[in-house]
């Protein structure tokens, strides 16, 4: 029955097109560039006020915690450093020298206003450096 088959094909086409559209639209509206600190600085002033994600290592000694929970710190990628301000939930891992990822907007006063802060879970990595420190005190 050709008519039945046609109805099918139309239905399948509709579903496929709709999903494709949702994907396209979703990506377009929510895509966020993932930059290193250096790349961010390089894109000033065009990058001001656009939503981006930046990763870097927390510079030791720069973490300032306010009494009302607001957080300020600096991150660096080795060559450049930026200031970050954040007022949400702070991951437990967050500390000096941790790899942090912030998402938000780089304001014109050169402070990155983050609405999301992620800190990298310790790599269950097989780095045995720590163990070597213990070596001297072993058998």
């Amino acid at each position, binding site marked *: 029955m050709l008519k039945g088959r046609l109805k099918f094909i139309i239905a399948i086409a509709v579903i496929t097109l709709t999903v494709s559209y949702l994907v396209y639209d979703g990506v377009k509206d929510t895509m966020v560039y993932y930059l290193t600190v250096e790349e961010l600085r390089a894109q000033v002033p065009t990058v001001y006020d656009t939503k981006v994600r930046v990763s870097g290592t927390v510079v030791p000694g720069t973490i300032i915690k306010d009494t*009302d929970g607001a957080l300020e710190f600096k991150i660096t990628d080795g060559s450049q450093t930026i200031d970050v301000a954040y007022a949400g939930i702070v991951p437990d891992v967050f500390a000096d020298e941790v790899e942090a990822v912030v998402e938000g907007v780089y304001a014109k006063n050169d402070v990155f206003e983050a609405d999301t802060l992620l800190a990298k879970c310790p790599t269950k990595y097989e780095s045995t450096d*720590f163990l070597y420190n213990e*070596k001297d005190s072993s058998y």
Partner: protein
Amino acid sequence: MVETGNISIFLALIISIYVLVASIYGVKTRKWDFVKSAENGALAVCALLIIATIALLHSLINLDFSLKYVALNTSTDLATIYRFTSLWAGQAGSILLWCLVLSFYTAIVVLQSRKKDRQLMPYVLSTLAAVSIFFIFIIAFVESPFEKLSFIPKEGRGLNPILQNAYMAIHPLTLYIGYVGLTVPFAFGMGALLSGKLGDEWIRYSRKWALFAWTFLGIGLLLGARWAYLELGWGGYWAWDPVENAAFMPWLAATAFIHSVMIQEKKGMLKKWNMALIILTFFLAIFGTFITRSGIISSVHSFAQSDIGPLFLGFIAFILLFSFGMFLYRINDLEAENRFDSILSRESAFIFNNLLFLGAAFAVFLGTIFPILSEALTGNKILVGPPYFNRVNVPIALVLIMLMGIGPLISWRKASFKNLLKNFLYPLLLGIFTVIVLLALGMKNITALIAFAFCAFVTGTVFTEFIRGTLVRMRRGENFLTAFMRLVSRNKRRYGGYIVHMGVVLIVIGVTASSVFVTEKQATLHKGESMELRGYSLRFDGLKQYTTDAKNATVANLTLFEGGREIGTIAPEKNIYKYEGNREINQETEVALRSTYKDDLYVILSSFNADGSATIRAMINPMVNWIWAGGIVLLLGAIVTMWPSGKKSRQEAFVRYTVREKDPTVKAQ
């Protein structure tokens, strides 16, 4: 024991290669001794991997720090139960676990299917062996759990505190049973392609395995979500993190598969589709484990960075090319036997179901690999976060819920429109009634309204099915209870499936409520001060400190009031772990949670100050418990669908086929 464990792994690898070769040789030359020998080999591999696992467990429990794996994952202050679970805490141990689970599946397939199809089974076995070879190779030569250090440290690095709880103890295990379990239907599919037995034997044999793996994968996902909710302290349970997506994608494809195989079984259609689908599902499972282990997509949960990545990629490429190659080779033999009569049939509903699930899987896949893809194509790393995933998946999910309601009302092949409308009526009214009530209560969010309406509709359909089915049987003279019991036991797949759908409905209700109607507040309080949140009031009574062997804890004691009435205390903590080995995480936030079916009150001690004041963050997450309850219902329904039917096996006993003794090398079965 270490040497024994080590050698066992090498033996297992060698024997697995033998199993692969012998089973194929045996079936091609019809020398059934080889096949039987290969089967024994598979059982031997299982025994050897059990020995290896016991060896590693022995080293872990006894803290044999001469082994790199033990030194990295345990410490002298680690409780025994967690020494046990540290088996799967790191790369090498978890791959050993993977191999072990796969060998169990292989062994059970061998034992269960011995009397089944002689042409098909050896190829199934060889596929299972091939996959096993890859994973055993990794623990034999790339990441050995028995690798030794050049010295013996006095203390190990220890297990990350956030992994030291019951959920993290079983979540990886259930996930693996799910992930690895998907290898079995895949092996049956490949067996069909390789042997040329392209009827639906492979589907019939692998159906329960697919269901089983799907169930465990789903439970594993829920356990992971619950763990994240309780331990990670951000108030949510799902972040569309690559590692979460890694398990979600195969689950979506597997859901499509378990539905569409019902059509093939009943109608003999969709042969090609099902074959391609199981290949895709298995691919997603391996891809998922690749993402998790290789660190190629940076995720907050990344397990590791390592050179395992390229190996996995090679394996994935091999699977895809080989399986699709075989698929195309046999494509002409995968002929359909029937055509569709009508677009209004259960077949169509299932096809739409499949398309939507695959659409969702594709969307999640794209979003997950977006950073890699964009970097490869444009040089810039671009990512898409939760807003993308939610925007795409929520509409798809809503349509799927609606299909869940409509599907059962439609008959196979062709549904009568008039009858459909008649059956539609009550559930539809229930849905509309729900919307009206919610609107009257002040709910304005459209997505939530639609979601709840659809859930009510599905609930109406499911109850109608049970009631009507029972009534039909009662007309035949059975009383209510007998009718009901027989209804379910004679149609386990159908009614078990309905129970699973009810579980899904509960989960959807919980997810909708806790996503759309969250309230959150943060305040810094001095002793005696209170904060208000939607009818609840939290009074800060002060900080306290205490010490245990493992940690120094700071507790914020709060008293909870609801509508002015005192209902209890809440005490979130911030802990500092003493043991230096867990240097990367030495601070841990303990969430204080008060859960009811109405909502969860989720309280965190964000920070505290020298003057005794504390910054408290409180969230109200409505109806989160419905998600976990839904998971339990889902599990129960799945168990019903998988429950064996005594009748069928009796029937199989009635006919024995013997081959005429024309050829002396061919023996009777």
